């Protein structure tokens, strides 16, 4: 049985589930112009989410420098305060704000609480994210 047939067979076990071919969901990420704000939010959440997963494991790996004692860690601290690292911190903050606030929006709509307000909610979330990012960036570079 090919993987496509397996998938179609498997999909029958989920009542009401529309049969799709493998990969179709992924290709949709890259064609959001065909859809509305919700899809932009979906794409943003996935891309930012995967970026944050990568960051999480990088962050945990870097923390292993602490096992090398004061010298190993404090040398890294000096490097981490360089402008390039601060710029990467701003990118990180953008990812956290984007994913976190957009996730909150998805939760509010997905649980049925603010479905009717999805458009103003999207705009509110975007405005808060941008303001938070600007404030955070100013804080990073002034510290």
């Amino acid at each position, binding site marked *: 049985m090919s993987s496509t047939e397996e998938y179609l067979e498997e999909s029958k076990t989920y009542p009401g589930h529309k049969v*799709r071919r493998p990969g179709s969901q992924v290709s949709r990420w890259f064609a959001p112009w065909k859809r509305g704000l919700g899809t932009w939010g979906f794409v943003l959440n996935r891309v930012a989410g995967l970026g944050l997963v990568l960051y999480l494991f990088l962050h945990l790996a870097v923390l292993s420098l602490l096992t090398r004692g004061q010298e190993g860690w404090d040398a890294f601290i000096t490097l981490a305060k360089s402008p390039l690292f601060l710029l990467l911190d701003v990118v990180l903050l953008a990812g956290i704000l984007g994913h976190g606030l957009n996730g909150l929006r998805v939760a509010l709509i997905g649980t049925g609480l603010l479905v009717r307000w999805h458009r103003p909610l999207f705009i509110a979330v975007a405005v808060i994210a941008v303001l938070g990012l600007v404030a955070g960036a100013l804080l990073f570079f002034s510290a």
Partner: protein
Amino acid sequence: MRSEYERRGGWSWITQVISGLLLIVLVGLHMIAQHFIVEGGLRTYQDVLAYVSDPVIFTLEILFLVVVTYHALLGVRSVLFDLGLSEAQERRVTQILVVIGLLTIGYGVWLSLYLIGQA
């Protein structure tokens, strides 16, 4: 569009929402405590030891580690499931992610306890 979450009975979607809401608080606390209120934005080695030795901070950071690892790997699982895997492949993906998650949490707890031992 809820994709994979919706068609799997919803448990993964609900727990992803709950862990996500918890993370908004925990990430906020982590960022404020570790970076925003620290002079220069990052703790020196001695400061890290003192910080992680505080029982309240230790508990919060471990809770953060557990919740963020769960949320991150459940998200990866959802992305991988959307590739259109067979049921056997999905089970294997889940098993591998559980192992990665446990190793990650184990590493974080070990590192924290090691640092407390150095304080």
